[in-house]
């Protein structure tokens, strides 16, 4: 598939491959997404806004320049921003693939980092030399101000220009808790939400701290996705219940929504509202208890996102779909085309 290199969330020529319940493969313009909805369906998206999680700075013990990418938090509590899981990279801008960066100084517990106005201490190494737990100085307001003024969204070397927050915040972006954008939701704008209503379907959101998709380190990538905190609003849990009663389908927009909803599902298929942490991976062996269908980006075999799609489709159909995506020149990555698996 072709890597998208421009940061347009809703390009007019965006494509959608629909895999319907009879396993037919249907190519349509992505704007036709709402035409596949039925009355009483429920579309659920992740309303997390994206953090400026890339922080440039200096490892003070060696004086060397580093890039720190924030990659995880214990909770979504607005005040709980002193501790972050983070990955340390060598110096370099978005043009340079992380794999090609110089090796960063090896951090040790107690080392300090000056990241613009933010000052942080390495609390501990998390089982791998570049994966650390950071403790930021200051109170929550000071840390938010430092992130806002100094942080940049995590960048991608396949893009033509560097990304700003307005490139990566979805139209529905709310609490800033995602480390990379929940990009499946780029399809949504206020007009599309109106279209969902016109088709007598419903829309709801969860908040899920989408983590980083790749570390540039093959060994570390095997541990992705990390544990991710989420929040299921009471209103969303109620809407899922009423959708079930009326025979509608629960359609997740993006892999993070599947992860949160299935983590919050009870054994008998009910959805528990409130806060939780999504752990483990979703794959071919997963029995989905809440989600019936997924609207997602296009994903390549071997990625954790592709593995998640295997929970929705048998391998032969997924392979057929992947082949169609390649043949029909679908674009991939954050700003790419989409698939809808019904």
């Amino acid at each position, binding site marked *: 598939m072709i890597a998208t290199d421009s940061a347009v969330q809703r390009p007019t020529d965006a494509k959608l491959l629909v895999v319907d319940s009879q396993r037919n493969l249907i190519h349509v313009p992505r704007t036709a997404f709402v035409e596949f909805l039925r009355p009483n369906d429920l579309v659920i998206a992740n309303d997390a806004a994206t953090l*400026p999680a890339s922080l440039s700075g200096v490892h003070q013990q060696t004086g060397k320049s580093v890039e720190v990418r924030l990659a995880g938090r214990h909770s979504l509590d607005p005040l709980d921003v002193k501790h972050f899981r983070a990955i340390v990279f060598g110096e370099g801008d978005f043009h340079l693939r992380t794999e090609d960066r110089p090796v960063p100084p090896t951090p040790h517990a107690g080392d300090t980092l000056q990241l613009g106005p933010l000052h942080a201490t390495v609390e501990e190494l998390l089982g791998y030399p570049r994966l650390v737990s950071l403790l930021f100085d200051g109170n929550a307001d000071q840390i938010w101000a430092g992130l806002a003024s100094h942080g940049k969204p995590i960048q991608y070397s396949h893009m033509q220009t560097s990304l700003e927050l307005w490139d990566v915040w979805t139209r529905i972006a709310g609490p800033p808790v995602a480390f990379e954008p929940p990009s499946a939701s780029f399809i949504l704008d*206020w007009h599309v939400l109106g279209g969902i209503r016109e088709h007598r379907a419903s829309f709801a959101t969860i908040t899920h701290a989408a983590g980083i998709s790749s570390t540039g380190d093959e060994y570390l990538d095997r541990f992705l996705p990390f544990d991710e905190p989420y929040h299921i609003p009471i209103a969303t849990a109620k809407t899922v219940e009423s959708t079930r009663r009326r025979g509608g389908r629960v359609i997740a927009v993006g892999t993070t929504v599947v992860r949160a909803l299935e983590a919050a599902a009870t054994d008998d298929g009910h959805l528990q509202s409130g806060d939780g942490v999504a752990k483990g991976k979703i794959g071919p062996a997963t029995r989905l208890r809440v989600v019936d269908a997924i609207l997602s980006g296009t994903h390549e075999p071997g990625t954790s996102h592709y593995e998640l799609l295997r929970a929705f489709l048998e391998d032969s159909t997924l392979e057929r779909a992947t082949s169609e995506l390649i043949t029909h020149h679908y674009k991939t990555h954050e700003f790419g085309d989409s698939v809808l698996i019904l």
Partner: protein
Amino acid sequence: MTASSDPFSDLRVAITGGTSGLGLALVRELVNRGARVAFVARTRERVEQVAREIPGAHGIVGDVSVKEDIYPIAIQITGELGGLDVLINNASDLGPTPLPMLSDTECEDLEHVFATNVFGPFRLTKALMGALAASAREGRGAVVLNVTSDAAVNAYPGWGSYGSSKAALHHMSRIWNEEHASEGVRFLSLDPGDMDTPMHTAAIPDADPATLKRPEQSAHEFAEAITEALPQITWMERHDSHGFSSSASN
């Protein structure tokens, strides 16, 4: 009325232009009613001073007329409050004083007035619409209050930049209100009246303060208008529908 029975209790509110005049009065009024308030203003010293004077209020340094400041402002608002129920676009620019006739107004001055009074509220509201709509979906309601002026509807000589910018903001509010009614996000466009504020003094230096409204009175009226626009839910319902388990609301 106890704090927990006030409709503003546990409400998450952002106010631009929050360090003087009506904005400062609104910060005080809403904090006193139990709201969790983030306020925005350009001058760091003033922001820090007001944050010290009003414990619990979150001060954010930023200029809504500057495009590059909007997302840093938005992320601090939703980051610190964990979401947003009410946005008050109050920051305003009068333009040069003494107030020139419109044909004597420099284009750059007109552009700057529009940058503060129209494009700033437009950009900030757009960036925060997701948070506001989420609040509405959760049953908490969502309100955007745009502060306008009678100069938006009356043609006062000398008030060309300010009046035309407020007319644009007023009409934008009406269109937003139509477009987002089905999302449950309400838009109000309210004129606070002639108040005894630094902006009024700059516009009409010889006005008798005794004839002007106190900004505290307008802040109280605005709080009542927001209350009427919000769904009538109990504090407990609002607290239960709250975004996240937060030590801020315990």
